[in-house]
């Protein structure tokens, strides 16, 4: 029973991190039809910027803000100068985002070196609670809280504001939104940069959890996020939330009971979902 609760908490924390990556990826895919391969590199940029600022100022909040700010600007840069040139051309998008991913991942190695950087957890989250004999790591609880807050925030943004209304309409019928006289390109930039900032936040929060940041972490987490998007349903925000939790819980369970099968299980789940329910487990089919 003890181990069960620990595993659930681990899984939910992992799911919260995955959600930060996958939600941006999913909305970008739904709104612009872009398979964004830069997400992994934005993730590690978030982590490295956080470590850099945190060791300079010793402030957790400043580090997070810097990571989010830098990745937001990177998102604007990527969308304005590169991705916006190749809308509607899927292979070109894959190649151009992949090229950016290769460049910026290698830039990380150029700036911060190729060896992983280590980082501790901030003091006020470094402890553990012991409740009834169960050890609960504070930082994981914090991650779950952040995940819930961000999910709630995005939900409000998408469903209660005018911006969200336009984005939701754009996911379904971009041409119709344009016909109504709305400059959807501005929203494209905004959504892309927003997704980038979420990925950066994910990276910044990931580094203290694992205790280090390596330049290879990007691709690994990106593949996981892709799997979440497909399992949850492309373009569906609720789907990526559900998919993240499912994959997080499954990941922590498998890591405990059958560690050898971790990656095979994720990919296998994705293949099964694609074969039998291509619209995703949680999402509604998006018609284009």
């Amino acid at each position, binding site marked *: 029973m003890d181990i069960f609760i620990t595993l659930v908490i681990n899984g939910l924390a992992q799911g919260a991190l995955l959600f930060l990556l996958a939600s941006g990826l999913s909305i970008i895919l739904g709104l612009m039809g872009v398979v964004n391969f830069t997400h992994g590199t934005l993730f590690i940029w978030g982590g490295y910027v956080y470590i850099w600022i945190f060791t300079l100022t010793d402030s957790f909040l400043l580090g997070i803000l810097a990571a989010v700010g830098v990745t937001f600007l990177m998102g604007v840069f990527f969308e304005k100068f590169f991705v916006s040139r190749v809308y509607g051309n*899927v292979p070109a998008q894959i190649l151009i985002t992949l090229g950016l991913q290769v460049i910026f991942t290698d830039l990380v190695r150029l700036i911060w070196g190729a060896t992983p950087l280590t980082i501790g957890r901030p003091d006020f989250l470094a402890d553990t609670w012991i409740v009834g004999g169960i050890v609960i790591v504070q930082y994981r609880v914090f991650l779950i809280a952040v995940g819930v807050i961000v999910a709630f925030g995005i939900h409000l943004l998408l469903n209660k504001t005018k911006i969200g209304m336009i984005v939701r309409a754009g996911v379904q019928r971009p041409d119709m939104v344009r016909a109504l006289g709305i400059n959807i390109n501005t929203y494209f930039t905004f959504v892309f940069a927003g997704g980038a900032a979420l990925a950066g936040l994910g990276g910044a929060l990931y580094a203290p959890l694992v205790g280090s940041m390596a330049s290879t972490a990007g691709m690994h987490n990106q593949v996981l996020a892709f799997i979440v998007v497909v399992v949850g349903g492309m373009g569906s925000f609720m789907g990526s939330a559900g998919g993240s939790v499912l994959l997080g819980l499954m990941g922590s369970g498998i890591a405990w009971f059958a560690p050898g099968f971790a990656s095979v299980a994720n*990919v296998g789940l994705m293949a099964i979902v694609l074969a039998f329910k291509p619209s995703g487990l949680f999402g509604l089919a998006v018609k284009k």
Partner: protein
Amino acid sequence: MMITKDFSKKRLIILALLLAGLSVIPHVSGLSTITLFSRIFIMAIYAMSYDILRGYMGFINLGHAMFFGTGAYAVGVMFRNFGSTLPVFLIAIVFSVVFSSIAAFIMGKIVFRSGGKGPVVVVAGAMTTLALGEIVRHTAERWRSVTMGADGLSYRIPEIFSNRILFYYYALIFMIVMTLVLRQFVLSPTGRVLMSIRENEQRAEFLGYDTQKYKLIGLQVAGIASGLSGVMFGVLNRFANTELLSVQQTLNALLMTLVGGTGTLYGAIIGSGFVNIVQSQLLNFRSVHPVFERWLLFFGAMYVIVVIFMPRGFVGLYYTLTDKQKAKVQKSAVGKS
């Protein structure tokens, strides 16, 4: 810009000169150049197999490396376990062909199952194939007793392949034969149907073609060609690791076809030459300046530059230029009369 059946005399002369030039190369250059060119020839067929999917069927396969990597592993594992002899090599070829056609059949059954059209289907297909490719790679990584896992597999090759100069000619012949075969496939009625599917699948269906079946055939042909190039690559490299099964390996093929020009078949050869030469040059520059330690920076820049400035690749660029010239000649002829 079409591949046509007839060969004009001018074209034949150019090809003969090119062939003569290529057959002289191993006698005038060093070992590294010979290996580089052998690599270019083999990768050209790999890229060409990708071009059949991407250029002729409009299908983005992110798991294409599974055929290539399995081909390389087939020779490696068999040489290691059954001895490095020519018959074993032939068995590896047969195995690779059988595996590729079965794997392509399964992949096609899963991917082409769901109907529909538009970018969403292309994206879903890309994701599915990515997943399938990752499954094969993970299996290879886990199956340590056979594949040696992430450490990679090194093995001895038969006597007749160990001479680099001779192998250069084998690779060259391999490229020429495979190019002719694939060219014949594209020109065949089946190839024509594939092109019509790319242009308008619905209309091809209304004409009475079973489009699923034709797409399956196309994927199988591409898979077998890719597997055979993997076998040759395995012999050239004398080493196989899971990198050969990775997404990166698939994307190399995508880059090569894009640099050369998609849907042109021959573009794959030019793309393979360009990409491999640039890659080896960047690696050489590492001794010149430390920034080239990060040669991936420049390699990544190539993806971006090609997509933005040369979307139709070198062959496309060539056709654009000649078309302009033709138009100019025609214009001046009209002006005179």
